C-alpha cells in the first residue's frame, strides 16, 4: 500500500535547498573579509568592514537560510500552502543574492550609490516574499503559538526591510534622518522582531519534536511573542521621543525575556526524556548559552555605562547575537531539516519504506559534530578578538573554515539524496 501513497504537494526539494546551499558561503565570505581586514574591523560597529560583515551574516547567511526554511516549514509545521513556491523561490533568491552583494560592496568600498542600487532589489525580493508568506500564514486553518510567532516574525521582517531601505537611501542621498537612532531600531527589529521571533516560534515546535523535550510551558508561548513585540514598539519610540533617560526601562526587560527563553530552552534540554547529543541539540545549546551571555553582558553595559561606553562593547554583543546565537541555531536547524527533507522526498518517490535510508545516513554524525566544534572555536576566537585585536585574522580564518565545512556537509547531503533517489528509481 505504501508504494501507492500520495504525498502532499510540499514544495519541490530544490526550493529550500537553493537557499540552504548558498547561506554557508556568505559565512565563508564574512570570515575571509575579516581575515583580510585584520584588527581594524572590530574597532567599532560603524567601520565599513563591520557593516559589511554584519550584512554578509544577516542577509547572506541568516536571511537566505530562514527564507528557505520558511518555504518548507509552513506546509510541514502549520499546514499552510505557499503560493507557487518554485516560482517565488526562483525569483526571490537570486534577487536577494544580488541585493546583498550590492549592499555589502556599498558598505565595504564606501560607495553610497551601491547601497541605493540594492534597495529596489530588496524591496522586490522581500516585498514579494513577505506577501506570499503572510498570505499562507493567514489562510492556514492551523492554530497555536508557533503560527502566531511566525505571523509576527514576518511583520518584523517587513519593518526591518523598510527601515533598512530608508537608511540606505538616507546614506546615498544625505536625507535628514536620525541615522544612529534609525540604525538602532532597524537592528533591533531585524534581530528581535524577525530573527528571534521566528527562532522562538520554530523552537516551540522543533525543540520538543526533534530534541525530545517536554513542550514549552503554555504561559511562556502565550506571552513571549506579544511581550517581545510590545518591547520592540517601545524601543522604536526613540525615533520620536528622547528616551535616553529611561532607555534601560525597555532594554532591561528585553534582555530579561531573552534570558527566560534561553534559560527555559536549556532547562527543557536538561530535563528531557531521552538524552540525545546530536549536532542539532548541541548547536541549540551553544545558541542559548550565547543568548544568556549576551543578556548578562548587555545588562552589565546598561547598568555600568562606563563599561558600555567602549565602542567594542557593541561589537561584543553583535558577535554573540550573529555568530553565537543565530549562526549556531540556524546551522543546527539545517542539520535537521536537510536530512529530514531528503528522507521525505525519497519517500515521495513511492518505493517501499525499506528502500529509503535512515535520516542519519544523510550527513555523517562525525562531520556534523566536527564542524560544530570548529564553529564554537570560531565564536570564542571572534569574542576574544574584540579585546585582543591580534586574534582577528585567525578568528576570521576559523569562521571561514567552519562555514565552508558546513557548506560542504550540506552539499554532501544533497549528493547522497541524488544517489539514493537514483537507486530507488532504478529498483522501481
Amino acid at each position, binding site marked *: 500500500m505504501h508504494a501507492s501513497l500520495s504525498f502532499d504537494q510540499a514544495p519541490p526539494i530544490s526550493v529550500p535547498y537553493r537557499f540552504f546551499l548558498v547561506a554557508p558561503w556568505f559565512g565563508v565570505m564574512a570570515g575571509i573579509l575579516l581575515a583580510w581586514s585584520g584588527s581594524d574591523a572590530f574597532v567599532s560597529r560603524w567601520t565599513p568592514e563591520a557593516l559589511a560583515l554584519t550584512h554578509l551574516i544577516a542577509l547572506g547567511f541568516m536571511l537566505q537560510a530562514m527564507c528557505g526554511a520558511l518555504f518548507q516549514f509552513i506546509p510541514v509545521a502549520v499546514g499552510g500552502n505557499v503560493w507557487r513556491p518554485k516560482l517565488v523561490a526562483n525569483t526571490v533568491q537570486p534577487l536577494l543574492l544580488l541585493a546583498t552583494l550590492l549592499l555589502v560592496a556599498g558598505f565595504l568600498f564606501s560607495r553610497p550609490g551601491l547601497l541605493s542600487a540594492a534597495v529596489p532589489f530588496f524591496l522586490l525580493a522581500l516585498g514579494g516574499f513577505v506577501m506570499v508568506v503572510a498570505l499562507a500564514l493567514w489562510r492556514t486553518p492551523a492554530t497555536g503559538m508557533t503560527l502566531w510567532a511566525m505571523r509576527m516574525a514576518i511583520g518584523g521582517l517587513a519593518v526591518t526591510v523598510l527601515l533598512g531601505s530608508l537608511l540606505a537611501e538616507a546614506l546615498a542621498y544625505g536625507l535628514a534622518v536620525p541615522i544612529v537612532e534609525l540604525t538602532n531600531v532597524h537592528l533591533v527589529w531585524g534581530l528581535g522582531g524577525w530573527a528571534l521571533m521566528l527562532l522562538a516560534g520554530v523552537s516551540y515546535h522543533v525543540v520538543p519534536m526533534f530534541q525530545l523535550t517536554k513542550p514549552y510551558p503554555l504561559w511562556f508561548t502565550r506571552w513571549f511573542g506579544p511581550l517581545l513585540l510590545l518591547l520592540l514598539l517601545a524601543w522604536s519610540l526613540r525615533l520620536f521621543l528622547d528616551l535616553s533617560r529611561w532607555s534601560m526601562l525597555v532594554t532591561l526587560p528585553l534582555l530579561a525575556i531573552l534570558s527566560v527563553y534561553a534559560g527555559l530552552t536549556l532547562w527543557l534540554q536538561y530535563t528531557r*526524556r531521552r538524552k540525545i547529543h546530536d549536532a542539532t541539540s548541541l548547536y541549540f545549546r551553544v545558541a542559548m548559552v550565547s543568548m544568556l551571555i549576551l543578556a548578562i553582558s548587555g545588562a552589565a553595559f546598561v547598568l555600568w555605562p562606563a563599561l558600555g561606553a567602549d565602542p567594542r562593547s557593541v561589537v561584543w554583543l553583535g558577535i554573540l547575537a550573529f555568530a553565537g546565537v543565530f549562526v549556531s541555531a540556524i546551522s543546527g536547524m539545517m542539520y535537521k531539516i536537510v536530512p529530514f527533507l531528503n528522507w521525505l522526498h525519497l519517500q515521495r518517490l513511492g518505493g517501499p519504506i525499506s528502500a529509503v535510508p535512515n535520516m542519519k545516513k544523510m550527513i555523517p554524525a562525525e562531520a556534523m559534530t566536527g564542524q560544530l566544534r570548529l564553529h564554537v572555536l570560531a565564536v570564542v576566537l571572534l569574542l576574544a578578538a574584540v579585546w585582543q585585536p591580534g586574534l582577528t585574522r585567525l578568528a576570521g580564518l576559523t569562521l571561514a573554515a567552519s562555514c565552508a565545512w558546513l557548506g560542504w556537509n550540506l552539499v554532501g547531503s544533497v549528493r547522497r539524496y541524488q544517489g539514493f533517489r537514483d537507486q530507488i528509481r532504478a529498483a522501481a
Partner: protein
Amino acid sequence: MNTIIDGRDMQPPEPMERTLEALDTLGEGDEVLLLLYCQPHPLFSILRQNGYTWSEESRADGTREIRIRKQLG
C-alpha cells in the same frame, strides 16, 4: 486489530515511518492510535489524500491522541 504507536520518545521521522507501516495492515474497522506532542501535518496530508480519516484529542500534558481509520465507503 488496533495498533498503538507512542511517538513521544521517538525522533522524527520514526513516528511517521511506524504509522505508514501500520497502515499497510490496517483492516476495516481497525484503528491506529498515534501519540505525539505535535500535529504531524505531513502525515495528515498523506492520510487525507489516501482515504483515511483521523480524529485528534489533546491531553492535559500536551500529548495529542491521533486516531486513524480507513474512510468508510
